[in-house]
């Protein structure tokens, strides 16, 4: 397979060269925000750090973190570093838990974003000749427009279909011969169901590659999407606080993770409890610093996404670090008897057991001074037996696997099907009854 790049020099730069570019850009950024944004300056002063203290990339750790609340506290434009007349676009998050968070872009930011998105598309195997079906929502959400500008930058054909109306989407796929699909993974599965209902065979379509993101999805979901849509499913990562889609993208040769467009977005992995930077390869919270953004740069933004970084060379030739598929959020992290537990780890165990469906809920309680964890698993017909022994062995097996992976003993409770709420957007996976 021949590998294509969008900006070959940057994407394959030896790491020493890349790191020197990163340092220069970081120093410039820190000076600029210190001078222009009062909240950043205040936080740096409180932490006793000055722009000239940033002498190496390691010094990044001296800078204070930025969290979602900082964005809310400065709603709507308080963290912008340029006058509003230079801002050509704003995007905003939905603000389900309070005020929305607003981000802005200069013309140059849009140019940078278009380029990283074009890189992501090429990285996933798309090219000029592709008919790209963009089913990310257009609007305040960064997904639709962010991907759209990248498609045009690449010179491919954009179908700005946005989300919803699956029937029309499928007719368009058929008639326009869409070759690349951009959507959330759950919407991709919706489309597959709609195809089934319309009796459209995915093999009769021209889809070749899917670029899926904007929500966490498991490897088993990837297999399902690939099978049902007859395409190669790749993972994309992005968030509006950092840029939008195109922060990282899986290449076609990777054995693990997505390439981060590191000359623009500097990643770190920290311990979510202590804030300490963790060594390469260790799992923790992903933190980003933007290196080139003008209107809304961000320093050490805590994404709450759990991942790890792989600096090992990739078969595709890109030297850009890879981030592991996001496996959970620090918000869902449970500490049970001192052990960090992520619902996604439990899901991983369940998916690995033949016949078990990943419909589960974790119930945590405190009995006396001891935390207890109960995992409720639905009994599907695939695993049901009329013999008590068989079901009890299944519970024991799940319990043992969880113990092996997490180091925590739990109680497994088999429950009737559909007693656990189905995932529509965000499934509630944890019921924490502890009063701490």
């Amino acid at each position, binding site marked *: 397979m021949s590998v294509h790049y969008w900006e070959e020099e940057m994407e394959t730069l030896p790491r020493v060269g890349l790191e020197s570019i990163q340092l220069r850009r970081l120093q410039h950024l820190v000076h600029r925000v210190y001078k222009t944004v009062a909240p950043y300056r205040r936080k740096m002063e409180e932490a006793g750090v000055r722009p000239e203290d940033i002498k190496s990339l390691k010094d990044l750790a001296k800078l204070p973190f930025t969290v979602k609340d900082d964005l809310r506290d400065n709603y709507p434009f308080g963290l912008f570093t340029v006058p509003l007349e230079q801002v050509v676009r704003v995007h905003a998050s939905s603000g389900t838990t309070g005020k929305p968070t607003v981000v802005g872009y200069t013309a140059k930011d849009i140019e940078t974003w278009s380029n990283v998105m074009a890189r992501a598309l090429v990285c996933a195997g798309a090219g000029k000749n592709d008919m790209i079906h963009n089913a990310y929502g257009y609007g305040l959400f960064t997904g639709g427009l962010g991907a759209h500008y990248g498609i045009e930058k690449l010179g491919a054909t954009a179908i700005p279909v946005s989300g919803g109306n699956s029937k029309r989407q499928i007719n368009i796929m058929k008639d326009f011969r869409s070759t690349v699909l951009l959507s959330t993974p759950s919407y991709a599965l919706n489309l597959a169901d709609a195809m089934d209902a319309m009796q459209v065979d995915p093999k009769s379509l021209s889809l070749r590659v899917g670029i899926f993101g904007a929500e966490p999805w498991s490897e088993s979901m990837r297999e399902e999407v690939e099978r049902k849509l007859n395409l190669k499913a790749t993972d994309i990562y992005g968030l509006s606080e950092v840029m939008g889609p195109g922060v990282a993208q899986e290449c076609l040769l990777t054995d693990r993770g997505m390439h981060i467009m590191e000359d623009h977005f500097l990643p770190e992995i920290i311990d979510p409890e202590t804030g300490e930077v963790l060594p390469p390869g260790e799992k923790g919270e992903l933190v980003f610093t933007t290196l080139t953004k003008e209107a809304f740069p961000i320093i050490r933004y805590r994404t709450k996404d759990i991942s790890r970084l792989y600096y090992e060379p990739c078969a595709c030739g890109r030297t850009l670090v890879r981030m592991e598929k996001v496996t959970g959020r620090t918000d869902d992290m449970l500490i049970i008897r001192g052990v960090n537990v992520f619902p996604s780890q439990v899901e991983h165990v369940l998916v690995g057991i033949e016949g078990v469906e990943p419909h589960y809920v974790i119930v945590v309680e405190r009995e006396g001074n001891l935390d207890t964890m109960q995992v409720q698993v639905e*009994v*599907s*017909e695939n695993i*049901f*037996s*009329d*013999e*008590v*022994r068989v*079901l*009890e062995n299944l*519970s024991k097996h799940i319990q043992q696997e969880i113990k092996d992976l997490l180091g925590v003993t739990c109680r497994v*409770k*088999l*429950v*009737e*099907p*559909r*007693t656990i709420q189905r995932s529509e957007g965000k499934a509630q996976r944890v019921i924490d009854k502890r009063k701490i």
Partner: protein
Amino acid sequence: MLVEQIAVFLENKSGRLAEITSILADNDINIRALSVADTADFGILRLIVDKVERAKTVLRENGFTVGKTQVIAVEVEDKTGGLANVLQCIKKAGINVEYMYAFVNKTGENAVLIFRFEKMEQAIEHLQKGGFTILSREQICSL
């Protein structure tokens, strides 16, 4: 010779058994025999009914996990030692009983024993050799 039995997974929640039996009644399904195996967390309801497929479908439609297994129904005289004779025969053959339950038919003369054995085919062979009466589903339903 084998009789089809349906099994339903039950969480230990009040009213579940009432719900299942009402669903069966509403669909004109007659229960011929039943047993509940229970543990601290869950139960398994085993049923022999006159309309197996229909029962499976309606229970599934109501969100229950339903399985189908083959069991053996042995008819014995309703008197002391009836069950013991059957179990002696099975013991001699070295076959384990996974579970069993029993009911007495209308006339009260005979009892029907429902068995799930570890080795079903061998069990039938030995029971037949021992001269026991093995019932089909039709025979059970017409009792």
